[in-house]
């Protein structure tokens, strides 16, 4: 049996029991070592995501759900920002919807600090990006809306100031979804990519079910994105003085105005220059190869990541990257629409990728599911990156038919067994993962600084899930926070190599990935049974390299560019520190 901590909240405990009862007889004789419990409510997360009306008659009513994990007050604990949407009636009636900021109380609970934070913009929000754009050592926030975006500067005192106009990153009149900070020209300042979805006029919305692009399996549904005009993504170059320059046209970004949804900065060819992958809906996804001179070449088709393995457009939603097979090269996971497989693009080390979703047992199980948020994380600290996928259809109307597809869908949790194989273990990981949600954004974080990666998931028209990892048999771990000096302060884009127990792992520092969301920017390495880290190498975006010798496991290291480890922080596991009922 999975041990139930003494202070298990009543809600979680009852769900846990239900999950045990729901386990198919004979399928799983031994209890699963993987377990997640939803503690959102007892942890004090009282947020409710508003996103249109329940019928979802218009496309924007299905696409909300950005979540962000950030340490906004630099106290060493990850806080939470949740983006709210709105409704047509509220937009027309002037009712304000703002995101909510929750401060981590270090005891398993959070406090809503929105009121004093200054994060007060009213609008129909979608995505959120986190990054220290001015290198002052404090994380800033960028939130996308139906008609623009807002950049909040962190004032270092728990408050933020809207600096959008001054910074010039308003994305005015555009419906932004995911956004991501990354330093594409390695000048030490984070630039900003904003995926734009559809050019939508709220005064002239396409009529529900009317026309060829408003049908799904012959039933009337909300229209789009096909048939609607796409919004051209924007790339803003950071000028280093608090302002940005829109370089979209100059760098020929998204010339066809595809329906942008997922954004990921990564260095897929390990040449030290950030590349960019953009998951587009119903149109080819784009892979921009950085030329190390501040320019890009779009190589998605040749690299094998623009289309499905059969050369077909997919409905790309969320995207994340990690080295799932520990071969030293970053791979890419992408979620797609139902009736299609999610992708697991294996990096072939030659600028090309091969979709291994089928052989890895990641893709086929996903076919009836409509995936949004996707996140690599090591749920059991065994050194092999597992995968979480947040699912939920966009058309509630599907529930009226026996399509084998439902509106609310359970999330998928894939355990990596090495050798390129995953097993979907969601139904064996506690009742919270066995239930169905219309989930969207997903972020991973060690919220409790206990060496376990947890999950934060947004749910349309419902409260979010804060899934605490209570899995047994956790391996050792190491967490690394990077501090850039010549490089951007966050160290985004730094490639960190950790050797321990005969295994070499690489990870790239980033916050923004998945769908409209930002995760814990601190790198988390599961180390299995290794109780010593043999070596750490950090390849900084500036080109500098820091090498660190043997280190103890089960701790957080802060590695500063040019200095190496500056503040090792021992973190005692806190397995029983769940919030009170």
């Amino acid at each position, binding site marked *: 049996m999975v041990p139930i901590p003494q202070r298990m909240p009543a809600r979680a405990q009852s769900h846990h029991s239900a999950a045990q009862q729901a386990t198919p007889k004979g399928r799983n004789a031994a209890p699963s070592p993987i377990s997640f419990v939803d503690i959102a409510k007892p942890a004090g997360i009282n947020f409710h995501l508003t996103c249109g009306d329940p019928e979802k008659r218009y496309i924007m009513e299905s696409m909300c759900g950005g979540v962000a994990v950030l340490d906004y007050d630099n106290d060493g604990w990850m806080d939470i920002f949740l983006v709210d949407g709105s409704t047509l009636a509220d937009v027309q009636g002037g009712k304000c919807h703002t995101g909510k900021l929750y401060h981590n109380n270090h005891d398993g609970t959070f406090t809503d600090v929105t009121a004093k934070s200054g994060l007060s913009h009213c609008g129909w929000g979608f995505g959120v990006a986190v990054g220290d754009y001015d290198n002052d050592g404090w994380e800033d926030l960028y939130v996308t809306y139906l008609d623009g975006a807002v950049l909040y500067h962190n004032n270092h005192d728990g408050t933020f100031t809207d600096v959008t106009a001054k910074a010039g990153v308003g994305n005015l009149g555009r419906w932004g979804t995911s956004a991501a900070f990354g330093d594409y020209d390695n000048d030490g300042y984070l630039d900003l990519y904003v995926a734009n979805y559809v050019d939508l006029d709220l005064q002239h919305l396409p009529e529900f079910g009317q026309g*060829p*692009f408003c*049908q*799904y*399996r*012959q039933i009337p*549904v909300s229209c*789009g*994105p*096909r048939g609607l005009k796409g919004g051209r993504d924007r790339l803003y170059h950071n000028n280093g003085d608090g302002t940005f320059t829109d370089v979209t046209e100059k760098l020929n970004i998204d010339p066809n105005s595809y329906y942008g949804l997922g954004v990921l900065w990564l260095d897929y060819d390990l040449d030290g220059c950030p590349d960019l992958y953009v998951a587009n*809906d*119903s149109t080819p996804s784009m892979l921009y190869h950085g030329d190390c001179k501040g320019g890009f070449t779009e190589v998605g*088709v*040749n690299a*094998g990541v623009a*289309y*499905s*393995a*059969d*050369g*077909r*457009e*997919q*409905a790309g939603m969320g995207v994340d990257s990690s080295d799932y097979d520990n071969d030293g090269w970053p791979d890419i996971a992408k979620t*797609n*629409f*139902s*009736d*299609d*497989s999610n992708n697991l693009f294996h990096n072939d080390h030659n600028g*090309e990728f*091969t979709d*291994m979703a*089928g*052989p*890895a*047992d990641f*893709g*086929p*199980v*996903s*076919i*009836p599911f409509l995936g949004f948020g996707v996140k690599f994380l090591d749920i059991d600290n065994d050194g092999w990156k597992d995968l979480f996928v947040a699912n939920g259809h*966009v*058309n509630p109307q599907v529930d009226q*038919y*026996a*399509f*084998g*597809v439902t509106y609310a869908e359970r999330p998928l949790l894939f355990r990596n067994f090495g050798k390129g194989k995953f097993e979907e273990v969601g139904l064996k990981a506690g009742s919270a993962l066995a239930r169905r949600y219309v989930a969207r954004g997903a972020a991973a974080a060690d919220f409790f600084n206990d060496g376990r990666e947890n999950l934060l998931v947004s749910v349309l028209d419902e409260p979010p899930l804060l899934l605490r990892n209570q899995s047994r048999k956790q391996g050792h771990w190491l967490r690394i926070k990077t501090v850039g000096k010549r490089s951007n302060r966050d160290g985004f884009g730094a490639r960190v190599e950790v050797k321990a127990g005969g295994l070499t792992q690489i990870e790239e520092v980033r916050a923004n990935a998945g769908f409209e969301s930002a995760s814990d920017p601190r790198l988390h390495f599961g180390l299995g049974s290794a109780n010593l880290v043999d070596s750490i190498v950090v390849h900084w975006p500036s080109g500098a390299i820091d090498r660190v010798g043997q280190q103890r496991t089960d701790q957080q290291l802060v590695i500063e560019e040019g200095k190496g480890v500056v503040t090792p922080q021992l973190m005692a596991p806190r397995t029983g520190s769940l919030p009170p009922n």
Partner: protein
Amino acid sequence: MQRPRPSQHRPVSSVLPGLGATSQLLLCLTLVVFAQSQSENPRVTALIREGQSAIDAGDFSHAVQDFEDARQLAPENADINRGLVLSYLQAGRLADAQKIADFAVGRWPRDARLQHWLGLVYFKEGQPQNALQVLQRSESLNPDGSDIHFDIALVYLSVNQYPLAADELERAIKTNPNAALPHVLLGRAYQNTNRTIKAIEQFRAALRLDASIPLGHYHLGFALASLGRNQEAIAEYQKEILRAPDNPSVLYQLGHCELATGEWKSAVTYLRNATQLDPKNADADYDLGKALLLDGDAKGAVIALRQAAALKPESPDPHYQLARALEKTGDKEQSQDEFQIFADLKKAQPATGGMATGPIQ
């Protein structure tokens, strides 16, 4: 490559036993009625019996002759006219069958069986609308006739009217729940309207009634695969292969599933067999090329993919794979050419409807 997507099943005639065989089965059942018919003229009675025996033996020419001879003696005999319609129908002499059927239906307008057979004549003549009209008249005369519901469903399936076919098959099953074939066809109608879960139930029901029904495991496998349940699908395809080892469609789908699960060598074996048995199956060549490429045989992949492209020149997919395979062989120039062909063919394709990659209905 336009391989069938989960919800786009092939027409009924392409993978099921032929419609002729199905109709023949139903028509033969009706001969029992004739065996009981009587005539005052012993010669006429003898000719009717000989005609029935000839139909039973599959000797339709002989049957035609017997019933024609009988009709000379008794042109107003309903049994003789029925027998003649049947004989011409089974002999493939559709014009003659229609001529007699038209006369007989005019003479005995409330005879459900004659209306039914006239409908089958129209169907075989490629006139589905006329067939439906007459079959529905037959249905109104005999609402409990499961074979009429079944044949109406066949007509609907032939014109891709899956929801209507499903309605008729549900009625056929209600009146005769123990026939396996209607369950298979109902499953297919459900599958083609994306009601996959219900389709699986029907395929399983058919297999419970008749574990060896042709293509029962095949269709079940297809439905399971469309939900991503590839291992279960493979198990079903393998059962079908035991029953019909040389069916290229089954071999193709089995190879396709093996490819999807990363069993490339096994996929290559099945797909190669499928291409040999059905050299015009572009989908099999395409999948064979993909499997070979993933298995590290880029040169072999190029050969198979060129074949796929030749068989389906309008499809961009083989060119996409071909470009990738050529890149692996080091032929960058041809690879770029293929990428260009892929892009050009893509542009020429009509915009697909609906959300994302959802199938076009």
